[in-house]
C-alpha cells in the first residue's frame, strides 16, 4: 500500500512526462479493445447471419455429400427419410437438393450449383416466397453477388442447362424473380435457387435431398444415409478464418503496445538515472533496496492503471457510439468470401476488457521492473552524491 501511494505521488508529481506516456499507452489500450471488439462483433454477426441464412440449427448431410467436392454432387442425394415427413410438414426441417448446372447469361457459360428449397419454408431468411411468383418460365432467386457477377436482374430470363437423374442433358429458360441481399456469400456466389417442386420435376429426383436444414424444434432421427452436422462443425471454418484475422490484426496492435512500453522503459531508465540522489535518500531513510525497487516498478506499472482510466474517459463513449452506429465496412470487403455485413456492430465482453487490462498492466510492470533491478546493485553512498553508476 505504501509503495502504491508513494508511486502514484511520484507519478503525478512528474507531470507532463507521465501524462504523455499515459496517453500513448491509453491509445494502444483503446485500439486493442476496439480491434478485438470489432473482430468479436464480426464473429458474432457472421455466425448469426450464417445460422439465419444457411445452416439453421444444424444440417443432416447425405452421407456422400462433400461441399468441397463438386463431383460428389452426382451421387450425393438420397430419399428424404419418412421419419422426417411430419417435421417437414411442420416446417421444422427443410430439404435442399443440390445439382451441378450451367447458365448462359449474355451468351457466356457459367457453372453453378442449382439448389432447390420449399417455397414456403420458414427456417432460413432466404426470400423463398418469391418462388411462388407466376412467371413466364421457372422462377428462380439469386443473391446480390451472383447478380453482379452475371449482370442479371429481376425480370431477366437466362438459359439453364442441367443433367437429369439418368445423366441426360436438358435445358430451359428460368426467370429471375428476386435478387436477395445476404451477408453470407456461401448461399450467393455461383448459386441459383429454385423451388423444390421445380427441381424435382427437372431432374426426376422426386422426394430426394442432398441436405436437410433443421429448425429449433427438430427431433433427431437415426438413419444410416444421413449424418447430422451441428453448429460447431458447420461454423468451424468461419471461426478459424476470424481467429486468423484476429491473429494478423494482433501484430499491429502489439507493435503499438510495444512502442508505448518502450516509452515507459525509457522513462524508467532515465528516471532512475536522474533520481539516484533520491534513491540514496530513500535507502538512508530506512527503505530496503527491495522496497525501492518495488517503488520504481510500481511507478512504471502504474502508468498502465492511469492509462486504463484515461482510456475509459474517451474509450467508453467511443465504444458506446460504435455499438449504436456500427463500424462501416467497405463494399470491397464484403466480396472477400466470408460473411460480412456492411456495418459491424462491435462486441465488448468483460473478458476482453479485463484481459486487455491485465496484459497492459503486466507488460508495463515487467518493463518497469527491468531497469529498476539495477537499484538493488547501487552503492547508496555514491547514489547520495548523485554520482553516475
Amino acid at each position, binding site marked *: 500500500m505504501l509503495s502504491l501511494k508513494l508511486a502514484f505521488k511520484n507519478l503525478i508529481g512528474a507531470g507532463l512526462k507521465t501524462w504523455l506516456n499515459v496517453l500513448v499507452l491509453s491509445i494502444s489500450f483503446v485500439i486493442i479493445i476496439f480491434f478485438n471488439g470489432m473482430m468479436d462483433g464480426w464473429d458474432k454477426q457472421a455466425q448469426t447471419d450464417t445460422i439465419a441464412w444457411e445452416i439453421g440449427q444444424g444440417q443432416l448431410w447425405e452421407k456422400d455429400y462433400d461441399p468441397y467436392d463438386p463431383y460428389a454432387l452426382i451421387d450425393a442425394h438420397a430419399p428424404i427419410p419418412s421419419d422426417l415427413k411430419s417435421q417437414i410438414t411442420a416446417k421444422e426441417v427443410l430439404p435442399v437438393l443440390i445439382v451441378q448446372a450451367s447458365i448462359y447469361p449474355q451468351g457466356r457459360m457459367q457453372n453453378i450449383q442449382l439448389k432447390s428449397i420449399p417455397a414456403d419454408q420458414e427456417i432460413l431468411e432466404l426470400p423463398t416466397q418469391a418462388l411462388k411468383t407466376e412467371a413466364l418460365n421457372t422462377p428462380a432467386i439469386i443473391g446480390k453477388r451472383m447478380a453482379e457477377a452475371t449482370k442479371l436482374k429481376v425480370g431477366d430470363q437466362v438459359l439453364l442447362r442441367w443433367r437429369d437423374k439418368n445423366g441426360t442433358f436438358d435445358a430451359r429458360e428460368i426467370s429471375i424473380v428476386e435478387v436477395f441481399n445476404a451477408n453470407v456469400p456461401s448461399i450467393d456466389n455461383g448459386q441459383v435457387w429454385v423451388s423444390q417442386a421445380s427441381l424435382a420435376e427437372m431432374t426426376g429426383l422426386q422426394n430426394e435431398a442432398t441436405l436437410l436444414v433443421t429448425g429449433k424444434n427438430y427431433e433427431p432421427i437415426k438413419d444410416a444415409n444421413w449424418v447430422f452436422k451441428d453448429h460447431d462443425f458447420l461454423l468451424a471454418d468461419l471461426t478459424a478464418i476470424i481467429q486468423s484475422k484476429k491473429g494478423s490484426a494482433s501484430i499491429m496492435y502489439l507493435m503499438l503496445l510495444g512502442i508505448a512500453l518502450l516509452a515507459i522503459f525509457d522513462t524508467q531508465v532515465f528516471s532512475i538515472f536522474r533520481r539516484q540522489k533520491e534513491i540514496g*535518500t530513500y535507502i*538512508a531513510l530506512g*527503505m530496503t533496496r527491495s522496497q525501492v525497487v518495488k517503488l520504481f516498478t510500481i511507478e512504471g506499472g502504474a502508468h498502465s492503471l492511469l492509462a486504463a482510466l484515461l482510456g475509459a474517459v474517451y474509450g467508453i463513449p467511443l465504444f458506446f457510439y460504435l455499438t449504436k452506429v456500427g463500424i462501416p465496412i467497405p463494399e470491397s470487403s464484403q466480396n472477400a468470401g466470408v460473411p460480412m455485413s456492411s456495418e459491424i456492430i462491435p462486441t465488448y465482453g468483460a473478458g476482453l476488457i479485463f484481459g486487455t487490462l491485465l496484459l497492459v498492466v503486466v507488460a508495463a510492470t515487467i518493463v518497469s521492473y527491468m531497469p529498476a533491478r539495477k537499484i538493488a546493485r547501487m552503492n*547508496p553512498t555514491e547514489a547520495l552524491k548523485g554520482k553516475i553508476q
Partner: protein
Amino acid sequence: MASIISIQNVIKRFPVGKGHFTALENINLKFGKGEFAGLVGPSGSGKTTLLNIIGSLDTPSEGTATVMGRDIAGLSHKESAALRNQHIGFIFQSYNLLPVYTVFENVEFALLLQNHTAAARKKAVMEALEWVGLTDKVKSKPAMLSGGESQRVAIARAMVKRPDILLADEPSANLDAKNSHQILQTMKQLNQELKTTFIFSTHDEKVMQYLDRTISLKDGQVAKDVLADVAKV
C-alpha cells in the same frame, strides 16, 4: 558513559584501478549517548566515509564498527535498513528533500516506514515542525523553501522518529552564516532535550564552535580527539 557507537581498528579501502585507496586507517573511536561531536578535517580526510560506516550505508574493509550493539559488517541489507529506520537519522549537505512531496509529507516519510497510525504520524510531524519553527509551511513544496528552511525540514525529517543517532554531513555548507547558526542552535537544543547523539562531518568553523567534542581526521587517521570547554557556546 556507555557507548552506543564503537569503532575498533577500522580500515576502509576503495578499489582504484588495479590498486586501492585507503580512506580510513586504524580508526578507534567510541561515542556515547547524547554526545554532540564532529569529525573535522580537510576534503578527502575520510569524514564522510566514517559517517557512512556509522550510518550502515557502508561497511569497513577491516575492523569492527558496532552501532546500537550491532556489528555493521554482519548486517544484511534488510537489517541495516531497519537499523537506519529505527535508530539513525541523516542530514545532508544538499538537504535531499523529496521534491514531489510537501514539507509535511517529507517529514512524515520516515514514520511511514515504521507503520504508525495516521493520527500518530500527524502528531509527531507537527511536533517536529514545531521544533524547527516551520508549522506554517506544511503544505509547501521544497522548491518553495529557502536554503535555511529546507535544512530545517531535513532536521525535522531526521528527528521526527526520535533517533538515537543523528548523522549530519556538512549541514551548513550551503547556508549563509545566519542560517548556519540558526540550524546549529536548533540541533544543539534538540541534542539537549532529546539526548540524541549528533555526529557531524564538517570543515566549517561555525559548526566547530558548537561541538562538545572535535575529532580531527587527517589522511584517514585520527589526528586529535578533543573535548571542548563546556562554557564555550
